[in-house]
């Protein structure tokens, strides 16, 4: 049994982590690790960066092809996709789906939460995109939190 089947929380060993260079460009991190019958992420990607053999396969991102556009973030029914982009040596932008109220505004200071829902640092909201009812929020956090932060508390 995988650890996440007991806890509901992934560890970095369960996820493919991109290289420094790929992260600088900004790429999609897909935290969907089980074979479930679902494929909208692969179907919507404009550059075909997500590959899936059939509808039950695990989606795999080609980090070199991915442009970090974020289209897959808002379509994913599992809210399992994040775009991570490092901006300089100390900061990173994390784009995540958010389905709660209040909807944050650009410039808001919010709490950064990890996969366990624990506060792991501070974040600043840099972009808010409303596509349908899933709001897609981009926050700026410390670079070392880039692969940790997966939620915010407004």
């Amino acid at each position, binding site marked *: 049994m995988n650890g996440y089947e007991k806890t509901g*929380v992934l560890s970095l060993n369960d996820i493919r982590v991109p290289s420094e260079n790929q992260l600088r460009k900004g790429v999609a991190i897909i*935290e969907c690790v089980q074979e479930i019958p679902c494929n909208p992420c692969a179907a919507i990607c404009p550059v075909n960066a997500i590959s899936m053999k059939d509808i039950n396969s695990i989606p795999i991102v080609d980090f070199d092809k991915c442009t970090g556009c974020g289209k897959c973030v808002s379509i994913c029914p599992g809210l399992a996709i994040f775009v991570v982009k490092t901006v300089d040596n100390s900061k990173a932008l994390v784009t995540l789906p958010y389905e709660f109220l209040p909807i944050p505004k650009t410039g808001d200071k919010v709490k950064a939460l990890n996969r366990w829902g624990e506060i792991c640092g501070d974040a600043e909201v840099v972009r808010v995109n409303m596509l349908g009812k899933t709001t897609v929020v981009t926050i700026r956090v410390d670079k070392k939190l880039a692969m940790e932060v997966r939620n915010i508390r407004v």
Partner: protein
Amino acid sequence: MRITRHPILEFDRGRKILFYFNDKKVEGFEGESIASALHASGVRVLSYSLRYHRPRGFFCGIGKCSSCFMTVDGVPNVRTCITPIRENMRVRRQDGGVGELSDKRFAARKKMVVDDEIVVVGGGPAGMMAALAAAKQGASVTLIDENHRVGGQLIKQTHKFFGSLEEKAGKRGIEIAEELMKQINSVPGIHLILSTTVVGCYNNNTEDGGDRYRLVAVRRFMDGDQLLDVFCKRIVFACGAMENMLAFPGNDLPGVYGAGGVQTLMNVYGVRPGDRVLMVGAGNVGLIVSYQLLQAGVEVDRVVEVLPRITGYHVHAAKLRRCGVPIYTSHSIKEAYGSDRVEGAVVVEVDKNYAPVSGTEENVSCDTICLAVGLTPSVRLLEQMGVKTEFIPEAGGYVAVHDQSMQTSLNGVYVAGDASGIEEASTAMIEGQLAGVSAAASLGYDRGANELISRCRNALRIFRSGPFGEIPRRGKEKIAYLFDKMGKKIWGDSEL
């Protein structure tokens, strides 16, 4: 208790309506059910059990249990969870006894006779698709649902659906329901009858020597009921499922709800079930409803799951975990306590034989306990007709043995959706389509029927081919095996 702002839903509340509960004035909104309006005004005890007079509250929210039976305008045993409120209505709690129904309810109205080619019982995703598919083939269809709106379980599913993009994945259940409702109203050949419960089904009606089936249904009007005598050549049963109960002390206290009931209260009527919830079951339903509770502004203390692992999709669990809700695997509920409503619960760890480990009891302070411990297919009407049923654990209980066109052991009688084995809305829709097209094809309608049928079968095969499809797949394999063993000639299937 009323939700005013919600991240996904807008509650377009109708006009205010005043009615009476035990002679006290209560307020509600047009279009909502009696049980929901009472809940929103703080009334938790809806009835008392017959023998021990234990208080009972809202449980299933879809008219399938008996917790909400009340006397409404003198009529006893009204299912208040599916009965809309109206001005000056008089609602009373029944304290023991079952009351007496006066014949005037029926006698005042002449029975209505319906005669159609195909009748679909149940207007959830499976039934809606069955009716649409059959009508698009050219058949004439009557769709009957006991609720005052179509949509079944879909009308409360606010989360985005999985599946393929072509099959509406990424859309929310409520959006899919709305799309299908629009089609039901625009596709010619569908006659929709709402607020009508099918209560009896008869096989081989030979009154006129024909091969027609006969159903008896009761249609509820504001001022009484009407009997419907329904004749048809083909029937599709898409009656859905009932939520399972779990045995523990205090499980009948008001405040213990089925997960679907909670979904109905908060997502259809915009009423919070309580302030703090203990969720029992970490399958997809438990995980999804927990997340929706958070969206409705309700605290979720924790989710307990008796198995050693989370059985729902990881992505659903992850959404909940990153909001800070803990999931305790190998844990179960030991008891619920409270005088006339839930005031808390005791949870306990279980060993590998699922026996409670003493000394691991923990108190959970909550006013709501939500049970997400599975569903049981509704097959009573099918059994009444004499359709062969079998106990298939993988399908959720007794199900009608059926072939690949969803036809049962009786010629011309079809099943689809949860009623044919517990699965998902996505597969219910495909099965409904399959049943609808097959029923129409057996009557000679053919607008590319064969192609549609093979497309549906292929879609079902793909859906069930992953690891999460294994249980329903095994269930369906057993059903297919049993059907073949019956040795019945599958009429109409050879050319399909």
